[in-house]
Protein backbone atom coordinates (compact mmCIF):
# COMPACT_ATOMS: atom_id res chain seq x y z
CA UNK A 1 0.00 0.00 0.00
CA UNK A 2 2.69 2.37 1.06
CA UNK A 3 4.88 1.44 -1.90
CA UNK A 4 2.00 2.01 -4.28
CA UNK A 5 1.46 5.44 -2.95
CA UNK A 6 5.13 6.27 -3.29
CA UNK A 7 5.20 5.06 -6.87
CA UNK A 8 2.16 7.02 -7.68
CA UNK A 9 3.68 10.18 -6.27
CA UNK A 10 6.88 9.58 -8.23
CA UNK A 11 4.99 9.15 -11.45
CA UNK A 12 2.95 12.20 -10.70
CA UNK A 13 6.12 14.20 -10.16
CA UNK A 14 7.73 13.05 -13.38
CA UNK A 15 4.54 13.58 -15.33
CA UNK A 16 4.11 17.07 -13.99
CA UNK A 17 7.71 17.92 -14.90
CA UNK A 18 7.04 16.96 -18.50
CA UNK A 19 3.71 18.61 -18.36
CA UNK A 20 5.17 21.92 -17.34
CA UNK A 21 8.02 21.58 -19.79
CA UNK A 22 5.96 20.93 -22.86
CA UNK A 23 2.87 22.96 -22.16
CA UNK A 24 4.06 26.04 -20.39
CA UNK A 25 7.35 27.20 -18.97
CA UNK A 26 9.86 26.07 -21.58
CA UNK A 27 7.66 27.07 -24.44
CA UNK A 28 7.19 30.50 -22.99
CA UNK A 29 10.89 30.74 -22.30
CA UNK A 30 11.93 30.22 -25.87
CA UNK A 31 9.37 32.55 -27.32
CA UNK A 32 10.92 35.96 -27.71
CA UNK A 33 8.03 38.13 -26.65
CA UNK A 34 5.18 37.36 -24.36
CA UNK A 35 2.28 39.77 -24.33
CA UNK A 36 0.35 40.21 -21.16
CA UNK A 37 -3.36 40.16 -21.78
CA UNK A 38 -4.09 43.47 -20.14
CA UNK A 39 -7.28 44.05 -21.98
CA UNK A 40 -8.81 40.73 -22.80
CA UNK A 41 -10.79 40.25 -25.95
CA UNK A 42 -14.47 40.19 -25.20
CA UNK A 43 -15.23 36.64 -24.15
CA UNK A 44 -18.85 36.87 -25.30
CA UNK A 45 -20.24 33.64 -26.61
CA UNK A 46 -22.37 33.69 -29.74
CA UNK A 47 -26.08 34.24 -29.20
CA UNK A 48 -25.75 35.88 -25.81
CA UNK A 49 -27.15 39.30 -25.13
CA UNK A 50 -25.10 42.18 -23.82
CA UNK A 51 -26.79 45.50 -24.38
CA UNK A 52 -24.50 48.32 -25.40
CA UNK A 53 -24.55 51.83 -26.76
CA UNK A 54 -22.46 53.89 -29.14
CA UNK A 55 -22.68 57.66 -28.83
CA UNK A 56 -21.49 59.53 -31.91
CA UNK A 57 -20.46 62.91 -30.59
CA UNK A 58 -19.82 64.19 -34.13
CA UNK A 59 -23.58 64.00 -34.69
CA UNK A 60 -24.68 65.19 -31.24
CA UNK A 61 -26.01 68.72 -31.42
CA UNK A 62 -24.60 71.27 -29.01
CA UNK A 63 -27.24 72.68 -26.69
CA UNK A 64 -29.78 69.97 -27.57
CA UNK A 65 -31.25 68.19 -24.54
CA UNK A 66 -33.89 66.03 -26.25
CA UNK A 67 -32.46 62.74 -24.98
CA UNK A 68 -31.98 64.06 -21.45
CA UNK A 69 -35.52 65.43 -21.30
CA UNK A 70 -37.00 62.20 -22.66
CA UNK A 71 -35.06 60.04 -20.20
CA UNK A 72 -35.80 62.18 -17.20
CA UNK A 73 -39.51 62.29 -18.03
CA UNK A 74 -39.62 58.56 -18.72
CA UNK A 75 -38.05 57.75 -15.34
CA UNK A 76 -39.54 60.46 -13.14
CA UNK A 77 -36.14 61.97 -12.45
CA UNK A 78 -36.58 64.99 -10.17
CA UNK A 79 -35.25 68.34 -11.23
CA UNK A 80 -33.36 69.58 -8.20
CA UNK A 81 -31.35 72.73 -8.73
CA UNK A 82 -27.82 73.06 -7.41
CA UNK A 83 -24.93 70.62 -7.61
CA UNK A 84 -25.27 69.32 -4.05
CA UNK A 85 -28.35 67.17 -4.39
CA UNK A 86 -29.00 66.95 -8.11
CA UNK A 87 -30.28 63.69 -9.54
CA UNK A 88 -29.34 62.81 -13.10
CA UNK A 89 -29.43 59.70 -15.23
CA UNK A 90 -28.00 61.14 -18.44
CA UNK A 91 -26.31 64.50 -18.80
CA UNK A 92 -23.63 66.44 -20.63
CA UNK A 93 -20.15 66.83 -19.24
CA UNK A 94 -17.02 68.56 -20.62
CA UNK A 95 -14.70 66.23 -22.56
CA UNK A 96 -11.81 66.81 -20.16
CA UNK A 97 -14.02 65.72 -17.25
CA UNK A 98 -15.55 62.70 -18.95
CA UNK A 99 -12.24 61.54 -20.46
CA UNK A 100 -9.63 62.95 -18.04
CA UNK A 101 -6.82 60.66 -19.11
CA UNK A 102 -7.47 61.16 -22.83
CA UNK A 103 -7.72 64.92 -22.79
CA UNK A 104 -4.64 66.96 -23.73
CA UNK A 105 -3.99 70.61 -24.65
CA UNK A 106 -4.10 69.90 -28.36
CA UNK A 107 -7.41 68.08 -28.41
CA UNK A 108 -9.56 68.82 -31.50
CA UNK A 109 -11.47 72.04 -30.91
CA UNK A 110 -15.01 70.67 -31.28
CA UNK A 111 -14.20 67.77 -28.99
CA UNK A 112 -12.85 70.11 -26.36
CA UNK A 113 -15.80 72.47 -26.68
CA UNK A 114 -18.83 70.20 -27.05
CA UNK A 115 -19.93 68.55 -23.82
CA UNK A 116 -20.05 64.75 -23.91
CA UNK A 117 -23.22 62.79 -23.21
CA UNK A 118 -22.59 60.73 -20.09
CA UNK A 119 -24.63 58.03 -18.35
CA UNK A 120 -24.17 54.75 -16.52
CA UNK A 121 -21.70 52.61 -18.48
CA UNK A 122 -23.34 49.30 -17.57
CA UNK A 123 -19.86 47.90 -17.02
CA UNK A 124 -19.08 44.29 -17.65
CA UNK A 125 -17.24 44.30 -14.29
CA UNK A 126 -19.25 46.83 -12.33
CA UNK A 127 -17.60 48.00 -9.07
CA UNK A 128 -21.00 49.22 -7.80
CA UNK A 129 -22.38 45.67 -7.93
CA UNK A 130 -19.27 44.35 -6.22
CA UNK A 131 -19.59 46.70 -3.25
CA UNK A 132 -23.38 46.72 -2.71
CA UNK A 133 -24.06 44.97 0.62
CA UNK A 134 -27.65 43.95 -0.20
CA UNK A 135 -27.60 43.11 -3.94
CA UNK A 136 -29.87 46.13 -4.45
CA UNK A 137 -27.55 46.85 -7.38
CA UNK A 138 -27.09 43.81 -9.56
CA UNK A 139 -26.09 42.83 -13.08
CA UNK A 140 -28.62 41.09 -15.27
CA UNK A 141 -27.79 38.31 -17.72
CA UNK A 142 -28.15 40.81 -20.56
CA UNK A 143 -25.48 43.07 -19.07
CA UNK A 144 -27.77 45.74 -17.67
CA UNK A 145 -26.70 46.99 -14.25
CA UNK A 146 -29.99 47.44 -12.41
CA UNK A 147 -31.21 48.78 -9.11
CA UNK A 148 -33.88 47.56 -6.77
CA UNK A 149 -35.06 50.80 -5.18
CA UNK A 150 -36.95 48.86 -2.55
CA UNK A 151 -33.95 46.99 -1.30
CA UNK A 152 -31.41 49.84 -1.30
CA UNK A 153 -30.42 50.83 2.24
CA UNK A 154 -28.88 54.12 1.11
CA UNK A 155 -25.34 53.40 2.33
CA UNK A 156 -23.93 55.04 -0.83
CA UNK A 157 -21.09 52.55 -1.08
CA UNK A 158 -21.94 52.21 -4.78
CA UNK A 159 -21.43 55.94 -5.25
CA UNK A 160 -17.96 55.68 -3.75
CA UNK A 161 -17.34 52.65 -5.96
CA UNK A 162 -18.51 54.06 -9.30
CA UNK A 163 -15.51 55.61 -11.07
CA UNK A 164 -17.77 57.52 -13.47
CA UNK A 165 -19.94 59.55 -11.10
CA UNK A 166 -23.01 57.99 -12.69
CA UNK A 167 -25.04 57.58 -9.53
CA UNK A 168 -27.30 60.00 -7.69
CA UNK A 169 -28.70 59.87 -4.19
CA UNK A 170 -32.10 61.12 -3.07
CA UNK A 171 -31.06 63.42 -0.26
CA UNK A 172 -34.73 64.37 0.20
CA UNK A 173 -38.16 63.34 -1.05
CA UNK A 174 -37.84 63.70 -4.83
CA UNK A 175 -41.56 63.74 -5.64
CA UNK A 176 -42.20 67.49 -5.24
CA UNK A 177 -39.42 68.09 -7.77
CA UNK A 178 -40.86 65.96 -10.57
CA UNK A 179 -42.42 68.36 -13.07
CA UNK A 180 -44.77 65.91 -14.73
CA UNK A 181 -45.19 62.43 -13.36
CA UNK A 182 -45.01 59.51 -15.78
CA UNK A 183 -47.47 56.97 -14.34
CA UNK A 184 -45.75 54.11 -16.21
CA UNK A 185 -42.60 54.27 -14.07
CA UNK A 186 -42.23 54.30 -10.28
CA UNK A 187 -41.04 57.38 -8.43
CA UNK A 188 -38.45 57.05 -5.67
CA UNK A 189 -38.43 57.80 -1.96
CA UNK A 190 -35.82 59.78 -0.08
CA UNK A 191 -32.74 57.85 0.96
CA UNK A 192 -32.13 55.61 -2.05
CA UNK A 193 -29.62 55.71 -4.88
CA UNK A 194 -30.67 55.76 -8.54
CA UNK A 195 -29.15 55.77 -12.01
CA UNK A 196 -29.72 54.93 -15.68
CA UNK A 197 -31.23 51.48 -16.27
CA UNK A 198 -30.72 51.35 -20.06
CA UNK A 199 -34.54 51.57 -20.23
CA UNK A 200 -34.97 47.97 -19.13
CA UNK A 201 -38.72 48.62 -18.87
CA UNK A 202 -38.90 49.70 -22.53
CA UNK A 203 -36.62 46.91 -23.75
CA UNK A 204 -39.03 44.46 -22.10
CA UNK A 205 -41.73 45.80 -24.41
CA UNK A 206 -39.45 45.65 -27.45
CA UNK A 207 -38.94 49.41 -27.53
CA UNK A 208 -35.66 51.27 -27.92
CA UNK A 209 -34.30 53.30 -25.01
CA UNK A 210 -35.97 56.68 -24.57
CA UNK A 211 -32.76 58.64 -25.23
CA UNK A 212 -32.19 56.91 -28.55
CA UNK A 213 -35.80 57.37 -29.68
CA UNK A 214 -35.68 61.04 -28.77
CA UNK A 215 -32.51 61.81 -30.70
CA UNK A 216 -33.25 63.40 -34.09
CA UNK A 217 -29.66 63.23 -35.25
CA UNK A 218 -29.29 59.49 -34.80
CA UNK A 219 -26.22 60.05 -32.66
CA UNK A 220 -27.11 57.13 -30.36
CA UNK A 221 -26.90 53.54 -31.54
CA UNK A 222 -28.23 50.94 -29.14
CA UNK A 223 -28.07 47.19 -29.60
CA UNK A 224 -26.78 43.79 -28.70
CA UNK A 225 -22.99 43.55 -28.47
CA UNK A 226 -23.35 39.77 -28.51
CA UNK A 227 -24.88 39.71 -31.97
CA UNK A 228 -22.19 40.03 -34.68
CA UNK A 229 -24.80 41.17 -37.20
CA UNK A 230 -26.27 43.94 -35.08
CA UNK A 231 -26.00 47.58 -36.08
CA UNK A 232 -23.95 48.41 -33.02
CA UNK A 233 -21.39 45.76 -33.88
CA UNK A 234 -21.21 47.08 -37.43
CA UNK A 235 -20.54 50.58 -36.10
CA UNK A 236 -17.91 49.30 -33.67
CA UNK A 237 -16.25 47.33 -36.46
CA UNK A 238 -16.04 50.24 -38.87
CA UNK A 239 -15.31 53.20 -36.64
CA UNK A 240 -12.74 54.04 -34.03
CA UNK A 241 -14.42 54.15 -30.64
CA UNK A 242 -13.45 54.96 -27.05
CA UNK A 243 -14.66 53.73 -23.68
CA UNK A 244 -14.27 55.79 -20.50
CA UNK A 245 -11.43 54.89 -18.10
CA UNK A 246 -10.61 51.50 -19.62
CA UNK A 247 -7.53 51.32 -17.39
CA UNK A 248 -9.77 50.48 -14.41
CA UNK A 249 -10.83 47.15 -15.89
CA UNK A 250 -14.54 47.90 -15.70
CA UNK A 251 -15.16 47.33 -19.44
CA UNK A 252 -18.00 49.79 -20.12
CA UNK A 253 -20.82 48.93 -22.52
CA UNK A 254 -21.01 52.54 -23.69
CA UNK A 255 -18.70 53.60 -26.52
CA UNK A 256 -17.93 57.01 -27.98
CA UNK A 257 -17.05 58.36 -31.40
CA UNK A 258 -15.36 61.77 -31.57
Amino acid sequence: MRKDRRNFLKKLGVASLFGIGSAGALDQYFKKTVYAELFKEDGLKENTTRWGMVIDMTKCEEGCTACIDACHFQHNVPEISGKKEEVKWIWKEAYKNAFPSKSHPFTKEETQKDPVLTLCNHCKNPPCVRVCPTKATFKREDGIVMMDFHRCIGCRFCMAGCPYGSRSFNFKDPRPFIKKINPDFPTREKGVVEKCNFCAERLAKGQAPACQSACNNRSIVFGNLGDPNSEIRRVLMTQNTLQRKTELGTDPSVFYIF
Partner: protein
Amino acid sequence: MIEKAFVGNRNYWVWIFFLLILITVGFVSYMIQLDIGLSVTGMSRDVTWGVYIAQFTFLVGVAASAVMLVIPYYLHNYKKFGKIVILGEFLAVSAVLMCMLFVFVDMGKPMRVLNVILYPTPNSILFWDMTVLSGYLVLNVLCGWVVLSAEHKGVQPPKWIKPFIYLSIPWAVSIHTVTAFLYAGLPGRHLWLTAILAPRFLASAFAAGPALLVLLSLLLKKLVGFDAGKEAIEKLTTIILYAAIINFFFVAMEFFTAFYSNIPGHEHGLAYLFFGLEGHHNLVPWMWFSLIIGIGSVVIFLIPKLRQNQSLLIVACLSIFLSLWIDKGIGLVLGGFVPSPLESVTEYSPSLIEILITLGIWAIGAFVLTVLYKIAISVKNQNT
Protein backbone atom coordinates in the same frame (compact mmCIF):
# COMPACT_ATOMS: atom_id res chain seq x y z
CA MET B 1 -22.11 43.81 39.22
CA ILE B 2 -24.33 46.15 37.25
CA GLU B 3 -25.68 47.63 40.50
CA LYS B 4 -22.34 49.41 40.97
CA ALA B 5 -23.26 51.76 38.14
CA PHE B 6 -26.23 53.05 40.14
CA VAL B 7 -24.26 54.39 43.06
CA GLY B 8 -21.91 57.30 42.68
CA ASN B 9 -21.01 60.68 44.00
CA ARG B 10 -22.40 64.00 42.81
CA ASN B 11 -19.82 64.45 40.08
CA TYR B 12 -20.68 61.05 38.66
CA TRP B 13 -24.35 61.96 38.34
CA VAL B 14 -23.65 65.43 36.96
CA TRP B 15 -21.50 63.84 34.27
CA ILE B 16 -24.16 61.18 33.53
CA PHE B 17 -26.89 63.82 33.17
CA PHE B 18 -24.67 66.02 31.03
CA LEU B 19 -24.18 63.07 28.67
CA LEU B 20 -27.90 62.33 28.70
CA ILE B 21 -28.62 65.90 27.60
CA LEU B 22 -26.15 65.60 24.71
CA ILE B 23 -27.72 62.27 23.77
CA THR B 24 -31.20 63.79 23.78
CA VAL B 25 -30.10 66.70 21.60
CA GLY B 26 -28.45 64.23 19.23
CA PHE B 27 -31.57 62.08 19.16
CA VAL B 28 -33.86 65.01 18.36
CA SER B 29 -31.44 66.08 15.60
CA TYR B 30 -31.55 62.56 14.22
CA MET B 31 -35.35 62.67 14.16
CA ILE B 32 -35.09 65.78 12.00
CA GLN B 33 -32.63 64.03 9.70
CA LEU B 34 -34.91 61.00 9.51
CA ASP B 35 -37.84 63.22 8.58
CA ILE B 36 -36.19 65.41 5.96
CA GLY B 37 -33.47 63.08 4.72
CA LEU B 38 -29.71 63.37 4.48
CA SER B 39 -30.33 66.72 2.83
CA VAL B 40 -29.85 68.25 6.29
CA THR B 41 -26.20 67.16 6.26
CA GLY B 42 -23.33 68.78 4.38
CA MET B 43 -22.92 65.72 2.17
CA SER B 44 -23.44 66.03 -1.57
CA ARG B 45 -23.58 64.05 -4.80
CA ASP B 46 -19.80 64.37 -5.03
CA VAL B 47 -18.88 63.94 -1.36
CA THR B 48 -21.22 61.13 -0.41
CA TRP B 49 -19.63 60.27 2.92
CA GLY B 50 -18.91 62.84 5.58
CA VAL B 51 -18.26 63.14 9.26
CA TYR B 52 -20.32 60.04 10.19
CA ILE B 53 -18.31 57.56 8.14
CA ALA B 54 -15.12 59.39 9.09
CA GLN B 55 -15.88 58.91 12.81
CA PHE B 56 -16.75 55.30 12.14
CA THR B 57 -13.39 54.73 10.45
CA PHE B 58 -11.46 56.40 13.24
CA LEU B 59 -13.32 54.60 16.03
CA VAL B 60 -12.74 51.18 14.49
CA GLY B 61 -9.09 51.95 15.16
CA VAL B 62 -9.75 52.91 18.77
CA ALA B 63 -11.64 49.66 19.19
CA ALA B 64 -8.88 47.58 17.63
CA SER B 65 -6.25 49.12 19.88
CA ALA B 66 -7.46 47.06 22.87
CA VAL B 67 -5.26 44.36 21.42
CA MET B 68 -2.20 46.39 22.41
CA LEU B 69 -3.08 45.56 26.02
CA VAL B 70 -4.36 42.05 25.46
CA ILE B 71 -1.20 40.88 23.65
CA PRO B 72 1.32 41.91 26.34
CA TYR B 73 -0.92 40.76 29.20
CA TYR B 74 -2.20 37.44 27.92
CA LEU B 75 0.48 36.40 25.41
CA HIS B 76 3.61 37.77 27.09
CA ASN B 77 2.36 37.51 30.65
CA TYR B 78 3.14 41.18 31.23
CA LYS B 79 1.45 41.47 34.61
CA LYS B 80 1.77 45.25 34.84
CA PHE B 81 -1.15 45.56 32.45
CA GLY B 82 -3.34 43.56 34.85
CA LYS B 83 -5.19 46.59 36.07
CA ILE B 84 -5.88 48.22 32.71
CA VAL B 85 -6.57 45.36 30.32
CA ILE B 86 -10.21 45.66 31.31
CA LEU B 87 -10.11 49.39 30.51
CA GLY B 88 -8.90 48.55 27.01
CA GLU B 89 -11.58 45.93 26.48
CA PHE B 90 -14.37 48.18 27.69
CA LEU B 91 -13.03 51.04 25.56
CA ALA B 92 -13.31 48.67 22.61
CA VAL B 93 -16.93 47.89 23.52
CA SER B 94 -17.84 51.56 23.62
CA ALA B 95 -15.93 52.33 20.41
CA VAL B 96 -17.54 49.50 18.45
CA LEU B 97 -20.98 50.63 19.60
CA MET B 98 -20.24 54.12 18.32
CA CYS B 99 -19.00 52.66 15.02
CA MET B 100 -22.27 50.84 14.52
CA LEU B 101 -24.31 53.92 15.39
CA PHE B 102 -22.30 56.07 12.99
CA VAL B 103 -22.94 53.67 10.14
CA PHE B 104 -26.60 53.51 11.09
CA VAL B 105 -27.16 57.29 11.09
CA ASP B 106 -25.37 57.52 7.75
CA MET B 107 -27.91 55.27 6.04
CA GLY B 108 -30.53 56.76 3.78
CA LYS B 109 -32.99 53.97 4.63
CA PRO B 110 -32.12 52.88 8.18
CA MET B 111 -35.38 50.93 8.53
CA ARG B 112 -33.96 48.54 5.94
CA VAL B 113 -30.77 47.84 7.86
CA LEU B 114 -31.67 44.16 8.23
CA ASN B 115 -31.39 43.77 4.46
CA VAL B 116 -27.66 43.36 5.05
CA ILE B 117 -28.45 40.15 6.96
CA LEU B 118 -31.53 39.10 4.98
CA TYR B 119 -29.60 39.24 1.71
CA PRO B 120 -26.04 38.43 2.78
CA THR B 121 -23.59 39.48 0.07
CA PRO B 122 -20.08 38.11 0.63
CA ASN B 123 -18.62 40.09 -2.27
CA SER B 124 -19.38 43.31 -0.43
CA ILE B 125 -16.77 44.40 2.09
CA LEU B 126 -19.51 46.16 4.05
CA PHE B 127 -21.09 42.79 4.75
CA TRP B 128 -17.78 41.56 6.21
CA ASP B 129 -17.32 44.73 8.17
CA MET B 130 -20.68 44.21 9.80
CA THR B 131 -19.73 40.62 10.57
CA VAL B 132 -16.34 41.37 12.12
CA LEU B 133 -17.57 44.39 14.07
CA SER B 134 -20.46 42.52 15.68
CA GLY B 135 -18.13 39.62 16.43
CA TYR B 136 -15.61 41.94 18.04
CA LEU B 137 -18.32 43.55 20.16
CA VAL B 138 -19.45 40.18 21.45
CA LEU B 139 -15.86 39.06 22.11
CA ASN B 140 -14.97 42.13 24.14
CA VAL B 141 -18.19 42.16 26.15
CA LEU B 142 -17.70 38.47 26.87
CA CYS B 143 -13.99 38.56 27.74
CA GLY B 144 -14.22 41.76 29.75
CA TRP B 145 -17.32 40.77 31.68
CA VAL B 146 -16.34 37.17 32.46
CA VAL B 147 -12.88 38.10 33.71
CA LEU B 148 -14.27 40.97 35.77
CA SER B 149 -17.04 38.81 37.32
CA ALA B 150 -14.42 36.28 38.36
CA GLU B 151 -12.48 39.06 40.02
CA HIS B 152 -15.70 40.24 41.63
CA LYS B 153 -16.21 36.80 43.12
CA GLY B 154 -12.55 36.56 44.05
CA VAL B 155 -11.90 33.49 41.89
CA GLN B 156 -9.73 32.71 38.87
CA PRO B 157 -11.37 33.38 35.49
CA PRO B 158 -12.85 30.17 34.01
CA LYS B 159 -10.57 28.26 31.63
CA TRP B 160 -13.05 28.35 28.76
CA ILE B 161 -12.62 32.09 28.37
CA LYS B 162 -8.97 31.77 27.25
CA PRO B 163 -9.72 30.72 23.65
CA PHE B 164 -12.04 33.69 23.29
CA ILE B 165 -9.33 36.03 24.57
CA TYR B 166 -6.83 34.59 22.11
CA LEU B 167 -9.40 34.82 19.33
CA SER B 168 -9.92 38.49 20.08
CA ILE B 169 -6.31 39.23 19.07
CA PRO B 170 -6.46 38.40 15.35
CA TRP B 171 -10.06 39.59 15.41
CA ALA B 172 -8.92 43.07 16.43
CA VAL B 173 -6.54 43.16 13.49
CA SER B 174 -9.32 41.96 11.22
CA ILE B 175 -11.74 44.77 12.07
CA HIS B 176 -9.34 47.45 10.98
CA THR B 177 -8.09 45.53 7.99
CA VAL B 178 -11.61 44.96 6.73
CA THR B 179 -12.44 48.61 7.36
CA ALA B 180 -9.43 49.61 5.27
CA PHE B 181 -10.65 47.26 2.52
CA LEU B 182 -13.87 49.27 2.33
CA TYR B 183 -11.72 51.99 0.82
CA ALA B 184 -8.67 50.28 -0.63
CA GLY B 185 -10.60 48.20 -3.16
CA LEU B 186 -12.36 50.95 -5.04
CA PRO B 187 -11.12 51.66 -8.56
CA GLY B 188 -10.80 55.32 -9.38
CA ARG B 189 -10.38 56.60 -5.80
CA HIS B 190 -6.65 57.10 -5.88
CA LEU B 191 -6.09 58.35 -2.33
CA TRP B 192 -7.58 55.12 -1.01
CA LEU B 193 -6.29 52.76 -3.67
CA THR B 194 -3.09 51.88 -1.85
CA ALA B 195 -1.88 48.57 -0.46
CA ILE B 196 -0.58 50.19 2.72
CA LEU B 197 -3.97 51.54 3.70
CA ALA B 198 -4.68 48.66 6.10
CA PRO B 199 -1.18 48.76 7.68
CA ARG B 200 -1.50 52.54 7.96
CA PHE B 201 -4.89 52.19 9.62
CA LEU B 202 -3.45 49.72 12.12
CA ALA B 203 -0.42 51.89 12.89
CA SER B 204 -2.52 54.98 13.50
CA ALA B 205 -4.98 52.95 15.56
CA PHE B 206 -2.25 51.53 17.79
CA ALA B 207 -1.07 55.07 18.48
CA ALA B 208 -4.43 56.82 18.93
CA GLY B 209 -6.12 54.11 21.02
CA PRO B 210 -3.36 53.71 23.65
CA ALA B 211 -3.00 57.52 23.77
CA LEU B 212 -6.66 57.72 24.73
CA LEU B 213 -6.11 54.99 27.31
CA VAL B 214 -3.22 56.85 28.89
CA LEU B 215 -5.40 59.95 29.13
CA LEU B 216 -8.28 57.96 30.60
CA SER B 217 -5.96 56.28 33.12
CA LEU B 218 -4.52 59.60 34.28
CA LEU B 219 -8.04 61.02 34.49
CA LEU B 220 -9.23 58.07 36.58
CA LYS B 221 -6.27 58.46 38.88
CA LYS B 222 -7.14 62.09 39.47
CA LEU B 223 -10.90 61.61 39.77
CA VAL B 224 -11.32 58.33 41.61
CA GLY B 225 -7.81 57.46 42.71
CA PHE B 226 -7.56 54.44 40.41
CA ASP B 227 -3.86 54.03 39.69
CA ALA B 228 -2.99 52.06 36.59
CA GLY B 229 0.63 52.00 37.66
CA LYS B 230 3.60 54.00 36.46
CA GLU B 231 5.13 51.11 34.56
CA ALA B 232 1.92 50.36 32.69
CA ILE B 233 1.70 53.97 31.54
CA GLU B 234 5.34 53.95 30.48
CA LYS B 235 4.85 50.77 28.49
CA LEU B 236 1.83 52.33 26.81
CA THR B 237 3.83 55.39 25.79
CA THR B 238 6.43 53.14 24.20
CA ILE B 239 3.67 51.45 22.20
CA ILE B 240 2.30 54.85 21.14
CA LEU B 241 5.76 56.04 20.14
CA TYR B 242 6.52 53.14 17.81
CA ALA B 243 3.04 53.03 16.32
CA ALA B 244 3.11 56.80 15.69
CA ILE B 245 6.52 56.63 14.02
CA ILE B 246 5.38 53.79 11.78
CA ASN B 247 2.24 55.77 10.95
CA PHE B 248 4.18 58.85 9.84
CA PHE B 249 6.60 56.66 7.95
CA PHE B 250 3.62 55.26 6.01
CA VAL B 251 2.33 58.77 5.32
CA ALA B 252 5.75 59.64 3.90
CA MET B 253 5.55 56.55 1.67
CA GLU B 254 2.27 57.79 0.24
CA PHE B 255 3.87 61.13 -0.57
CA PHE B 256 6.85 59.55 -2.27
CA THR B 257 4.82 57.22 -4.48
CA ALA B 258 2.35 59.90 -5.48
CA PHE B 259 4.72 62.73 -6.23
CA TYR B 260 7.79 60.90 -7.53
CA SER B 261 5.71 58.83 -9.93
CA ASN B 262 4.07 62.10 -10.99
CA ILE B 263 0.82 60.34 -11.91
CA PRO B 264 -1.88 63.01 -11.71
CA GLY B 265 -4.56 60.80 -10.19
CA HIS B 266 -2.27 59.71 -7.39
CA GLU B 267 -1.15 63.25 -6.67
CA HIS B 268 -4.54 64.95 -6.60
CA GLY B 269 -5.89 63.59 -3.31
CA LEU B 270 -2.77 64.41 -1.31
CA ALA B 271 -2.33 67.71 -3.12
CA TYR B 272 -5.89 68.70 -2.21
CA LEU B 273 -5.37 67.79 1.44
CA PHE B 274 -1.99 69.42 1.97
CA PHE B 275 -1.68 72.16 -0.65
CA GLY B 276 -5.16 72.75 -2.01
CA LEU B 277 -6.49 71.95 -5.48
CA GLU B 278 -7.75 74.48 -8.02
CA GLY B 279 -8.33 77.13 -5.40
CA HIS B 280 -10.01 74.81 -2.90
CA HIS B 281 -8.13 74.40 0.34
CA ASN B 282 -10.57 74.01 3.25
CA LEU B 283 -8.64 71.10 4.69
CA VAL B 284 -5.09 72.44 4.25
CA PRO B 285 -4.82 74.09 7.70
CA TRP B 286 -6.30 70.99 9.34
CA MET B 287 -3.84 68.64 7.68
CA TRP B 288 -0.76 70.72 8.52
CA PHE B 289 -1.98 71.20 12.05
CA SER B 290 -2.42 67.44 12.31
CA LEU B 291 1.05 66.78 10.92
CA ILE B 292 2.80 69.32 13.13
CA ILE B 293 1.20 68.29 16.42
CA GLY B 294 1.65 64.64 15.46
CA ILE B 295 5.38 65.00 14.84
CA GLY B 296 5.63 67.23 17.92
CA SER B 297 4.12 64.51 20.09
CA VAL B 298 6.56 61.95 18.66
CA VAL B 299 9.40 64.21 19.81
CA ILE B 300 7.97 64.32 23.34
CA PHE B 301 7.49 60.54 23.43
CA LEU B 302 11.02 60.03 22.12
CA ILE B 303 12.93 62.08 24.70
CA PRO B 304 12.83 60.47 28.18
CA LYS B 305 13.12 63.76 30.03
CA LEU B 306 10.10 65.18 28.26
CA ARG B 307 7.83 62.17 28.43
CA GLN B 308 8.48 61.67 32.15
CA ASN B 309 6.99 65.09 32.80
CA GLN B 310 3.32 64.28 33.33
CA SER B 311 1.93 67.54 31.94
CA LEU B 312 3.97 67.11 28.76
CA LEU B 313 2.88 63.49 28.56
CA ILE B 314 -0.74 64.63 28.65
CA VAL B 315 -0.05 67.22 25.94
CA ALA B 316 1.65 64.57 23.81
CA CYS B 317 -1.19 62.08 24.20
CA LEU B 318 -3.81 64.72 23.41
CA SER B 319 -1.78 65.85 20.39
CA ILE B 320 -1.27 62.44 18.85
CA PHE B 321 -4.92 61.55 19.42
CA LEU B 322 -6.13 64.78 17.83
CA SER B 323 -3.57 64.52 15.06
CA LEU B 324 -4.69 61.04 14.07
CA TRP B 325 -8.33 61.95 14.48
CA ILE B 326 -7.86 64.73 11.93
CA ASP B 327 -5.76 62.53 9.66
CA LYS B 328 -8.23 59.66 9.57
CA GLY B 329 -11.43 61.16 10.89
CA ILE B 330 -11.37 64.04 8.42
CA GLY B 331 -8.59 63.95 5.86
CA LEU B 332 -8.65 60.39 4.66
CA VAL B 333 -12.38 60.02 4.11
CA LEU B 334 -13.04 63.48 2.66
CA GLY B 335 -9.83 63.53 0.63
CA GLY B 336 -10.89 60.37 -1.20
CA PHE B 337 -13.81 62.22 -2.74
CA VAL B 338 -11.64 64.99 -4.18
CA PRO B 339 -11.46 65.29 -7.05
CA SER B 340 -14.72 63.56 -7.98
CA PRO B 341 -14.78 60.86 -10.67
CA LEU B 342 -15.65 63.68 -13.07
CA GLU B 343 -12.60 65.65 -11.94
CA SER B 344 -14.47 68.38 -10.16
CA VAL B 345 -13.61 69.68 -6.70
CA THR B 346 -16.51 69.83 -4.27
CA GLU B 347 -15.78 70.76 -0.70
CA TYR B 348 -17.67 69.52 2.30
CA SER B 349 -18.30 70.86 5.76
CA PRO B 350 -20.68 69.29 8.24
CA SER B 351 -24.00 70.96 9.02
CA LEU B 352 -25.08 71.85 12.55
CA ILE B 353 -27.49 68.92 12.69
CA GLU B 354 -24.74 66.59 11.53
CA ILE B 355 -22.45 67.89 14.27
CA LEU B 356 -25.16 67.49 16.94
CA ILE B 357 -25.86 63.92 15.87
CA THR B 358 -22.12 63.22 15.92
CA LEU B 359 -21.80 64.69 19.41
CA GLY B 360 -24.81 62.66 20.50
CA ILE B 361 -23.16 59.44 19.40
CA TRP B 362 -19.88 60.35 21.08
CA ALA B 363 -21.98 61.01 24.20
CA ILE B 364 -23.54 57.56 23.95
CA GLY B 365 -20.02 56.13 23.71
CA ALA B 366 -18.90 58.17 26.72
CA PHE B 367 -22.01 57.08 28.62
CA VAL B 368 -21.39 53.39 27.98
CA LEU B 369 -17.72 53.83 28.79
CA THR B 370 -18.48 55.66 32.04
CA VAL B 371 -20.89 52.98 33.22
CA LEU B 372 -18.52 50.15 32.30
CA TYR B 373 -15.53 51.85 33.90
CA LYS B 374 -17.59 52.59 37.00
CA ILE B 375 -18.35 48.90 37.34
CA ALA B 376 -14.78 47.82 36.59
CA ILE B 377 -13.20 50.23 39.04
CA SER B 378 -15.70 49.45 41.80
CA VAL B 379 -14.80 45.78 41.43
CA LYS B 380 -11.05 46.51 41.36
CA ASN B 381 -11.30 48.77 44.41
CA GLN B 382 -13.27 46.28 46.51
CA ASN B 383 -10.33 43.88 46.27
CA THR B 384 -7.63 46.30 47.35
